[in-house]
C-alpha cells in the first residue's frame, strides 16, 4: 500500500435520494454534495476518499470485499440494509481495517424496526444523529488518526 491512506465511504439503499427524500429527517443537502466535500476534505489532509452508493446489497458486499486489501478504513452508512443484512455484517467481519458505521439520523430514536443494526457489532465505532455533517467529522477524524496509525 502507498503512503496515502485510503478510505472507502459506502452508502446503501435510498441514500441517492438525499436532499429530496424526507428532508425534515435527512436535510436538504444532496449526496453528490456530501461526496464532493468528503473527497476535498480528505485531499486537504492527504487522505484518498472513495465515495460510493448503491441500492443493491450485493454491490455493498463486493465493495467491502474489495477494500480488504486496498483500503485503510471503511465508513458505512448502509441505509435500511443496516437492519436486514447479515451478508453485509459478514463482509465487514472479514475486513480487518478500521470500520465506522455512520447514520445521518439516530436510528434509535425512530421506528422499532430500526433499533437493531447488523452493522454495529461488526464495526469498531458507531456515529449517528449528527446530520450530514457527520460525514465530514468522521473523515476529519480518520485523517488525523490514520496518520498516527491509531484511533
Amino acid at each position, binding site marked *: 500500500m502507498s503512503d496515502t491512506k485510503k478510505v472507502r465511504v459506502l452508502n446503501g439503499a435510498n441514500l441517492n435520494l438525499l436532499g429530496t427524500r424526507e428532508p425534515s429527517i435527512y436535510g436538504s443537502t444532496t449526496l453528490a454534495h456530501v461526496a464532493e466535500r468528503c473527497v476535498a476534505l480528505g485531499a486537504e489532509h492527504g487522505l484518498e476518499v472513495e465515495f460510493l452508493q448503491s441500492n443493491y446489497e450485493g454491490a455493498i458486499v463486493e465493495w467491502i470485499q474489495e477494500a480488504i486489501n486496498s483500503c485503510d478504513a471503511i465508513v458505512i452508512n448502509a441505509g435500511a440494509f443496516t437492519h436486514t443484512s447479515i451478508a453485509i455484517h459478514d463482509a465487514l467481519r472479514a475486513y480487518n481495517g478500521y470500520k*465506522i458505521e455512520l447514520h445521518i439520523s*439516530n436510528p*434509535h*430514536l*425512530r421506528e422499532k424496526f430500526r*433499533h437493531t*443494526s447488523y452493522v*454495529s*457489532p461488526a*464495526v*469498531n*465505532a*458507531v*456515529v*449517528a*444523529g*449528527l*446530520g450530514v*455533517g*457527520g460525514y*465530514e*467529522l*468522521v473523515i*476529519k*477524524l480518520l485523517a488525523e*488518526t490514520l496518520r498516527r496509525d491509531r*484511533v
Partner: protein
Amino acid sequence: MKVLILNGPGLDDLRRMDSSFDKELSLAQIEQECGKLCAKYGIDMTFRQGDVVTELFEWIGRSAAEFDALIINPIGYYSYEAYEKFEEYRSAIKMLAHLKKPVVEVHLTNIFRHGADLIEPLREPDAKIGFICGLGLHSYLLAIESIAQQHNLQGRVA
C-alpha cells in the same frame, strides 16, 4: 456557548472498562483533552462525573437552564443494575428535548459488541440526540466538534 459534559456511574475509574478499551486513558485525561478542544472553539465547558443517578438527574435539570448543549456518557460498566438505572435518565432527557437542547450520547467502547445487550442507547423519540460509541477519547472530541459544527463555531488557531 456552554456545554455540560456529564459522566455517569463507574466512569471515575476507567481501569474497570472491558478489554477493548485503552487502559492508559483516565477520565482526568479525557477532561483535559475536552477542555483544550472546547477552548479552541471558545466553548465554556463543565465536566462532571457522578455515581449517584439522582445527582446526575439534578445536574441535567440545571443544565437545561444554564447550558446550550449536553454531552452524556451515561454509564461506565455493563450490568443489569446499570440497565435499570438507565431508565431514570429518560425523563431528564425528555425535558431537554422539549427545550430543544442538543444532546450527544457518547460511549468509550462499542456498546453493541458486548453481546449481552445490557446497555441500550437512550431512546426519546422527540429528542435531538446524537450518538457516538467506540472511539475512546475521540467519542467525546467528535461530540464537541459536532456541536461546534452545528453552531458554526470557527476554531481559533492556537
